[in-house]
Structures are given as C-alpha cells and as structure tokens.
C-alpha cells in the first residue's frame, strides 16, 4: 500500500502544481459571486439560483479536473518516458494503476472539498443556515461518482493513444449518462427493434452516474437522501470502479510500453 500511496502522492503534487485547478476555482468563484451580486426585486434573501449556478459550476469543474487529470496520467508517463524508471522499481503495473487512480481520486476530492467549502460560505451568508450533512452527503455522492469516472478514464487512457481522444470520448459518455441515464429506458421503449433491445441493454449495463447528482436536494432544501440508499449507491460506485480498474489492469499489464 505504501507504494500505491507514494504513486498517489506524485499525482496530487502534479495537480496542485499545475494551474488547471486554480483557474477553474477562480472561474467558479467569480461566476458565483457575479450571480450572487445580482439584484432581483431588491430581495437579498433569494438564494436558490445562486446555489443552482454554483453547484452546476462545481459539477462541470470537478468533471474537468477529474477527466483531464486522469486522461493524462499513463499517456504522459509513456510520452515523457518516466514510466521506465518507475517500472524499473519493484512496483507492479497493477500498483501503478491503483496509485494513479488513488492520486486522481484524492486530488479531485481535495478540489471538491474546496469548492463545497466556498459554496457553503456563499450560501450560508445569505441563508444564515448551514445544512452541513446535506452538503457532505452531496459531496460524498459526487466524489463516489467521480471514482467511477476516473476509473473509466484510466481504462480509456490505456487504449486510446492521445489524451484528447480519451477526454472527448469520456466527456461525451459521462454527459450522456448524466443527461439521459434516467430516461433511457423510456426512450428505448419508444424505438423500433433492434434499437429497442440495444438501448435497453445499454440501460441495464451502464453505470448509472445520474444517481449521484444530488444538486436538486441541495438547491430545493429536500433534506437527506435515505441512508440505506446512500450506502447502496456508494457500494454500487465501488463495484463499478473496481470493474473499470480491473479492465484497465488487464489492458495495461501486457502492454508493450516500448512502442
């Protein structure tokens, strides 16, 4: 495990030494503050639109950080040839995959924590209440979803040579699942065969990332998601993460890195 944590540490250092996160955070902060500064009918108690905008920006930024950081890991190591001095050490390829995943996930978690902290400050200053458990639940669910996304991107980065391909494809897949995941079965039932069967299969086989979007619960003050559902969703995310990481390991372990 020490090796995996050591690998993760390098990934985290890379994230906070690159400018991506700071640019996204500043952008999120500026847009949120601009939205909060707007005056609607001289009512300074209006807060939900600020929450909505801020959470949307957090979701977009966190996905950007997660996908872009992860998509670069293995290809950048191969291109920069830093993979060779690393694999010349007593570390297996599985440990490299695990270390990269853990580093990306922890780094994204730190970024999420900063974003949500900012969110809590801004909304709390208006609402004068801090439903911390709701925010923590939303943060955890988003972080769990990002674990699945990071593992998926890691898998993609093994097979697609260019990080840009991995990033584009993964963004489309994630956006598609988040937007259509809930409704895919409804859409499938309206299609003729064989499309109906294909879409139904996709619906049952894909990871349902849309479950982890608790923005509505936060924006509309709907309280907490039930704890059994929360735990099951966490387990579901862990299973899918494991599936993608295993597939990534299968692909990486026999890969010829010298070509």
């Amino acid at each position: 495990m020490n090796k995996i944590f050591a690998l993760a540490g390098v990934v985290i250092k890379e994230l906070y030494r690159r400018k991506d996160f700071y640019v996204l955070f500043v952008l999120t902060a500026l847009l949120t503050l601009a939205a909060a500064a707007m005056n609607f009918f001289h009512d300074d108690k209006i807060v939900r639109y600020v929450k909505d905008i801020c959470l949307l920006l957090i979701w977009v930024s966190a996905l950007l950080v997660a996908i872009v950081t992860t998509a670069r890991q293995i290809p950048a190591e191969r291109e920069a040839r830093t993979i060779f001095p690393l694999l010349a050490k007593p570390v297996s390829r599985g440990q490299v995959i695990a270390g990269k995943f853990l580093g990306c996930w922890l780094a994204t978690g730190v970024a999420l924590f900063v974003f949500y902290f900012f969110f809590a400050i801004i909304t709390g200053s208006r609402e004068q209440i801090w439903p911390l458990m709701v925010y923590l639940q939303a943060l955890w669910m988003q972080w769990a979803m990002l674990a699945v996304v990071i593992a998926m991107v890691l898998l993609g980065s093994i097979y697609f040579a260019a990080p840009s391909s991995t990033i584009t494809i993964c963004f489309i897949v994630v956006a598609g699942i988040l937007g259509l995941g809930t409704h895919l079965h409804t859409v499938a039932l309206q299609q003729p065969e064989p499309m109906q069967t294909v879409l139904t299969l996709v619906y049952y086989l894909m990871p349902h990332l849309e479950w982890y979007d608790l923005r509505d619960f936060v924006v509309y003050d709907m309280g907490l998601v039930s704890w059994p559902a929360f735990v099951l969703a966490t387990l579901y995310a862990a299973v899918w993460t494991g599936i993608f990481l295993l597939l990534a390991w299968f692909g990486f372990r026999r890969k010829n890195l010298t070509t």
Partner: protein
Amino acid sequence: MSAILQTQKLRVEYRSRELRQPVKVALQGLDLEVRAGEVFGFLGPNGAGKTTTMNVLLGFIPPTSGTASLFGIDVRQPIARQRIGYLPELTYYYKFLTAEELLRFYAKIFGLPRAEADSRIEKLLKLVELEAAAKRPIKSYSKGMQQRIGIAQSLINNPDLLILDEPTSGLDPLGRMKVREIIQRLKNEGKTVFFSSHELGEVETICDRVAIVHQGELKAVGTVAEISTGHENLEKAFLRIVGFQSATTP
C-alpha cells in the same frame, strides 16, 4: 560465483499490426550470465538486441519464450527489481518534482524507512553534486544535471546490481569520468554492474567481462583479454565479430 543475472534461450519477437508483415526476431535464444561482483559490458551495434534484452530484464516487455531472472527470481515478478538500480539512456523524470522529492518518491517505492531515506538522499545529492539544486524543479535542470539525478535515483536503494543503458551517452568528458568513478566505486564495494555502451575504450578499461550481440544472437562472451586475442584491441575484435567489412581495406 553465483549468477546475479541470467537468461536462458531468451527469444523476443515483435509482431507487426499490419497483415502479412513478417515477424521481427529481436533476440534469438540468448543465453547470458552475469556473476556477482563483476562489471559486465554488453556490446553490439545498433539494432543488435541490447535494448530489447534490457527491456526484458526490467520487465518492460515479456519474452516470447525462454527465461530471464535477477537474483534467481523471474523478471516478471516486481520483487525481482528490489535490489537493482536502473539508469536509462535518456533521462526523463517528473519535471514538476524537485530532485529531493523524486528521490524520496523512489525511496518510498523501495520501502525505505524515513530516516534511512533522508540519510541516503543527502549522501547521493552530495555524490552527484546537486545539493544546491535539490529544491528546484527538475524542469529547470540542464541535461547534465538530469543525468546526475538519474544516477542518484539508480543508487537510492543501494542496489546490488546496477543496470546502465549507455551511461556516458551525451556526457562531457568530466561527466564520463564521474560515471567511471562511480562504477569503479561500486565494484570496489562488491556490487555488480551490467551496462551497455558504444564507448569501447571505456569498456576495455573497466569491464571484467563483456558480451557481444549481433542480430539478436550472442556472438562472443568472455574477458576483454580473451575476446581481444589476435587483435590490436577490443574495437578491432568487435568489428571482426560483427562482420564489419571496411571499404578501404582490401
């Protein structure tokens, strides 16, 4: 003396992704043995299979057939690399890390305790004369400095076997001298050094034994004196063994 590094009938084939392209055989049944405590030179013209052999030994590529082992452990096991140090020909390290951070990272990979890692890092930075630049990111280093940090990282675990891929390539005379001194020092400490090089003059000076490969086959192995028998020097012997025909000599 026991074999630290051993290959038996090692064969590596590269298959092209394109259809109807012939399989390229990089190594044809290589039998190699490096004993403990010796400095072993691994020679051959470009494309002979030296880098392929090293890639197999380091676990970068799997062999098509045959075996390779380090300290009696199959090279496909990560633990086989616990007691080795590796210096690649082209030194590329994480540019956003400082020299100290890089060495500390590799020390953690080897499982060195913190205190021991601190002590080794200090000594190595002094050895390679990078103490002043230790806290600067590697992206600000010159090529020579990057080569030196490469040497330092290859020694972080106090390896019993050092694998060097053309260690003096691209270095100035001072740098080459420094590398030779390090190899000699390691030999005096009883370590084993396995390195490839095109600098035959250097090989003659420091190696106990050499092996010459050509077109994936082992052509000669022995002491420098044994291989150079009947020739002016190692270079002439090398050229004859690889079948070089001079255009000027009748």
